């Protein structure tokens, strides 16, 4: 869980920072998007790096889901008879929503790939013009797309808040003071990453990016 999660988090950080390129204008953003496709060009031919990266991410996602499934199945088997009276649990909301939150994020990722990678669900859907794709995607009249993105990113934020702390713990974070630091770091990271992702659709929605 922790190791695959960290791989995905590293990708998310790069993805979020890359998205912010949208504020530098259409030419710069399109140039960046095209560069992403042929990173490592002199060494690796064409889109090799892109496919290596896609392969690693897919394996990480599948392993992450597989580990979560094992945990969920064990959890179900460990309590065959449910409690008749079970109030809202006393731990954090984030910890409680990891499983369904993860499912929501998976559905979002599928939609997101069809939208901005393959372009099937995008109103422009031109792979050579990523900037126009983004601007068309979050146009004010398509407010429901922005809403869906927002909900998914908020779900991602919660998932990361518990996930990041939990990864520290799984990898051996062991002191009480370290726990406070790990929780704080996880919260700051989750908020910063979510804000970084959300700023793009809202910039388009409000006309800051057009």
């Amino acid at each position, binding site marked *: 869980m922790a190791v695959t999660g960290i791989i995905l988090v590293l990708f998310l950080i790069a993805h979020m920072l890359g998205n912010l390129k949208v504020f530098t204008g259409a030419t710069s953003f399109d140039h960046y998007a095209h560069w992403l496709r042929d990173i490592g060009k002199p060494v690796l031919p064409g889109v090799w790096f892109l496919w290596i990266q896609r392969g690693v991410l897919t394996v990480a996602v599948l392993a992450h889901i597989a580990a979560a499934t*094992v*945990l969920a199945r*064990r*959890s179900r*088997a*460990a*309590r*065959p*008879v*449910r*409690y*008749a*009276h*079970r*109030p809202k*649990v*006393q*731990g*954090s909301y984030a*910890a*409680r929503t*990891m499983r369904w939150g993860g499912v929501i994020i998976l559905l979002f990722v599928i939609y997101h790939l069809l939208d901005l990678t393959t372009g099937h669900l995008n109103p422009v859907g031109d792979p050579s013009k990523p900037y126009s794709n983004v601007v068309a995607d979050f146009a004010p009249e398509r407010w429901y797309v922005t809403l869906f993105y927002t909900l998914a990113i908020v779900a991602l934020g919660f998932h990361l808040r*518990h996930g990041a*702390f*939990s990864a520290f*713990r*799984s*990898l*051996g*974070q*062991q*002191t*009480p003071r*370290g*726990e406070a630091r790990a929780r704080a770091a996880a919260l700051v990271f989750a908020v910063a990453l979510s804000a970084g992702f959300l700023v793009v659709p809202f910039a388009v929605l409000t006309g800051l990016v057009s």
Partner: protein
Amino acid sequence: MNLTLRIWRQSGPEDKGRMVTYQVDDVSPDMSFLEMLDVLNERLILAGEEPVAFDHDCREGICGMCGMMINGVAHGPQRGTTTCQLHMRQFSDGDTIDIEPWRAQAFPVIKDLVVNRSAFDKIIAAGGYITAPTGSAPEAHSVPVAKANADAAFEAAACIGCGACVAACPNGSGMLFTAAKVTQLSLLPQGQPERYTRVIGMVEAHDEAGFGGCTNAGECTVACPKGIPLNTIGRLNRDYLKATTKQADNTPGS
């Protein structure tokens, strides 16, 4: 105080079980929760009915025998308190209280509110001890222990093995118990020789017993009557990682 109790009744391991409602009147707020159940049981016996079976022993919060889900919370609403030390003043007149046994595959119900917790004994038998020559107590100053380690080990050693962590865990995991029993030894010099075989053996026994996996949800530490901190599980994780990546022979018991 007049209370309505809804108690899980199950005549034996094979019985399906159900919630049964009882009315208990004239409860004193100064009674402990178990004394309140004693009153109910005396009335049931006088009426020729089967009394409610529940575990208890010392009734002073240190033996770990008592424990039940009270309104869905392990050991009831008061933090850091076992069921026997919970007083009826925590409830108000007219309350309806749901009482259920610990629910876990590894803790099968024997009768009513009594569960079999021998899965914990199996975890202890898999490594929760040190191999040392017995005899008279050694001179305390002959083995120096850092104060911070002594305090942390003592905190973990406060575990009474009541099973509230398992009952409260959304995954039915017994990791807080296992971690407490690993930590109380791994932080002290006497626990070093078997440190890494111990953690592997105890985690294996934990998984074999049918407990769920820990997801760091943190429910256990809130329910724990002894306040075993959640970072204890981090100490177990650290030892487990070291044990599984070390080249040495880590066969439990070797």
